């Protein structure tokens, strides 16, 4: 097996998927899942930048207690668009559409996904949805909050329908990706690749795909119903005509809660890969981690009402959602313990991907535990719709999902591009991002419990110090995010060529060249060993099964 950082002279394979065909049409009409993943990588990065700009506007406004930087309408649009862009055009697609698309076929030993043309269609739907939403932004924006609650969203004078339909179209992108992954995992696995030999990355993407296909259509119809309210004057959510605005909340959260598991499960899949590779050890409790992914997917569908504890939902319904929300926390906890146990007696290397993985474990633990705070009904009454919630979900979505995304990007970058990035800058950036992130969001727990509501442009003066801390952190975070952009781009031009297995890791992707040929495998692999087989024939249980 190849050693990490060993001075083996590598050369980039002369013909690989990046240069096999040339010209813009060969990219825009490609059926190669790897090229489609790169199309997504570019577009997702652009949307991340846009979402980040909106976040910057919000944090700048919040430097002072007065609403003095932006017009109130503009501020309301800034936080709305930050949410819409980040949730629907960055977080939901990011890992599945970039890393999932690229790696899933390789990890199952296939030449491509089951439906390559549908994969390309997914990207085009994402772009079309993105353009529609951009059109809404450019022509004046939306100010309803990313949650689009009526009656305000029915009457708001902003471009709700256009933005909503943009999200609707992007949702179909998500559905088709999920569909493709499910059929691929069921039907395209290489000979010998039984379910329990699959990498945990595949398990988590399978679970994510189940959520994508079952949940996304519900938000799609919800958006359509809202659009029909506005365009045709139907009264389904209009209280003056017998409609119930809280029905929208139920329909919306029926998707949007599972959506957060769409956002975190792929990152958890990356986590399993990183922890195994950088400990050179099997993931502790493999089947428990695999089943936890499935458990999260299933339980994630029955907890949506914890967003409605104070919305006039009955107390008894609330009780049911509270107890189920406690249950959904358990499989996530199981995973965290298993990853921690994987480190025990591992051979651990602190490369940049591992820094992100270790950061993930800490930050996701905090984010997940603060979710438990919110599931406790007596506490939720006080902190609902405050910055406590904002901090909670940013710990999961940034500290969790984005750390997973960045860790995965760094880990697989040599495979995807055939280039090595600068490890020193990568580790420095990981550290800067970690510090900036905590400085941004930890004060928000405090100011949230103090009572500062969400979506506020102005606030009582005694909240200012914490807000200034948060904005300072956001500045550090922004710097941290810019660095990978620079050194990744630099590596494409000046990076050293990557060997097939720079990390000395196990997995089918490391058996093919960096970058690989278009068809991935010249001969179909036949799999005879379990995943993460660092100790062939010697694996033992620690304390009995």
């Amino acid at each position: 097996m190849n050693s990490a950082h060993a001075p083996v002279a590598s050369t980039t394979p002369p013909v690989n998927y990046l240069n096999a065909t040339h010209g813009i049409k060969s990219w825009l009409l490609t059926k190669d899942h790897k090229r489609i993943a790169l199309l997504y990588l570019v577009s997702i990065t652009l949307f991340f930048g846009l979402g980040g700009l909106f976040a910057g506007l919000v944090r700048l406004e919040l430097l002072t207690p007065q609403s003095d930087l932006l017009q109130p309408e503009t501020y309301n649009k800034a936080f709305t668009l930050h949410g819409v862009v980040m949730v629907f055009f960055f977080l939901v697609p990011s890992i599945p559409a970039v890393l999932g698309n690229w790696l899933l076929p390789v990890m199952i030993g296939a030449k491509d996904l089951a439906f390559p043309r549908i994969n390309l269609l997914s990207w085009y739907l994402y772009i079309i949805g993105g353009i529609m939403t951009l059109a809404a932004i450019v022509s004046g924006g939306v100010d309803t909050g990313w949650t689009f609650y009526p009656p305000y969203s029915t009457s708001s004078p902003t471009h709700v329908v256009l933005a909503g339909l943009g999200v609707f179209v992007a949702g179909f992108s998500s559905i088709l990706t999920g569909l493709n992954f499910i059929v691929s995992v069921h039907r395209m696995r290489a000979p010998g690749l039984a379910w329990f030999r699959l990498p945990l990355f595949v398990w988590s993407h399978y679970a994510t795909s189940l959520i994508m296909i079952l949940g996304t259509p519900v938000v799609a119809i919800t958006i359509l119903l809202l659009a029909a309210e506005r365009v045709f004057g139907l009264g389904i959510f209009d209280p003056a005509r017998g409609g119930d605005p809280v029905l929208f909340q139920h329909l919306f959260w029926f998707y949007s809660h599972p959506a957060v598991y769409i956002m975190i499960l792929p990152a958890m899949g990356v986590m399993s890969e990183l922890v195994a590779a950088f400990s050179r050890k099997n993931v502790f409790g493999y089947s428990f981690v695999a089943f936890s992914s499935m458990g999260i997917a299933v339980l994630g569908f029955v907890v949506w009402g914890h967003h409605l504890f104070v919305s006039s939902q009955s107390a008894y319904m609330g009780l049911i959602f509270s107890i189920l929300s406690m249950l959904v926390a358990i499989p996530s906890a199981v995973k965290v313990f298993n990853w921690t146990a994987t480190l025990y007696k591992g051979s651990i290397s602190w490369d940049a991907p591992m820094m992100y993985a270790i950061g993930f474990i800490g930050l996701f633990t905090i984010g997940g535990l603060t979710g438990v705070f919110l599931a406790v009904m007596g506490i939720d009454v006080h902190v609902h719709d405050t910055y406590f919630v904002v901090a909670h979900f940013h710990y999961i979505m940034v500290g969790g999902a984005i750390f997973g995304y960045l860790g995965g990007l760094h880990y697989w970058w040599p495979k995807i591009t055939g280039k090595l990035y600068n490890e020193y800058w990568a580790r420095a950036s990981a550290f800067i991002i970690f510090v900036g992130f905590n400085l941004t969001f930890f004060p928000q727990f405090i100011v949230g419990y103090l009572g500062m509501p969400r979506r506020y442009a102005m606030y009582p003066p005694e909240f200012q110090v914490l807000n200034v801390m948060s904005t300072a952190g956001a500045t550090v975070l922004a710097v941290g995010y810019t660095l990978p952009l620079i050194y990744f781009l630099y590596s494409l031009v000046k990076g050293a060529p990557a060997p097939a297995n720079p990390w000395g890791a196990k997995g089918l992707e490391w058996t093919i060249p960096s970058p690989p040929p278009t068809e991935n495998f010249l001969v179909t692999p036949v799999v005879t060993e379990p995943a993460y087989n660092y100790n062939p024939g010697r694996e033992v249980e620690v304390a009995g099964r």
Partner: protein
Amino acid sequence: MGSTLPLFPEAASTQAGNVDLLYFFVVAVSAFFSVLIAALVISFAVKFRRRQPDEVGAPITGSLALELLWTIIPLMITMVLFVWGAWVFLDMARPPRGSMEIYVVGKQWMWKVQHPDGQREINELHVPAGRNIRLTIGSEDVIHSYYIPAFRQKIDAVPGKLTTMWFNATKPGEYHLFCAEYCGTKHSGMIGKIVVMEPDDFENWLSGGGGMSTSASGEKLFADLACNTCHLENSGGRGPVLGGVPGSLVQLADGSSVIADDNYLRESIMNPQAKIVAGYQPLMPTFQGLVTEEGLLQLISYIKSLPPASSQTSNGAGH
């Protein structure tokens, strides 16, 4: 409200302490597990750092005992949290009998309050310390939320229905009031203060203003809108007698029955055809658009003030 860096909110209601105790417990549990995980991760990552380039980790696959341990213990802890949290919540959700009723209506972008004796307020709420106060809250337009951090209480104001919250303020003083559900342009300006007074001071304050009591306003509306032409004091009218109805069980024409809570009363005025009382014809017109949310609360207050009818109601259902 003057310090530059408060880190914890004031506790100014009987419930606040319960919420804070629960909160501190969850903080302690979370801190314990966070520190535990962080310590294990860091110590493993240092102790087991790679020493040779070709080194691999130990051949360990797992442990059923550990899996059970770290599944069952978190499960037990979360169940405790659920029960405790539910207990605190249910206490917060059920106003005690005999609470002083105050009516609140939210509209973009202000809070309008009516005290029972007629005193009105905008963006402020004066209450006496040491008494159970029950707020009945409506909205005129979009969803708002009435949030008093110092009391750890919050409930959404949802158009088309009425919601309630209750509290018992312990310390005289002024406390923040925030709208906590995004409602448009001036959402962050839809704020105010809760003014808690010693009971004597509160009585003085009450006697200072007022005008017609809420239920008297409701009585006037009842006549202005001609409700009294169908809802007579005794049976025989085209509509049911209303005295004694609030809180009672009402038999409906389709055979089902329903408790006449505030939302039933509100719906009966705004969409009377939704539930027809047994033995009556669906004659009542809707008052949607003809009465404001405040007017509705005044009418409800008036109906609640009516003595139970002395003669039998026509549906014969005694209680």
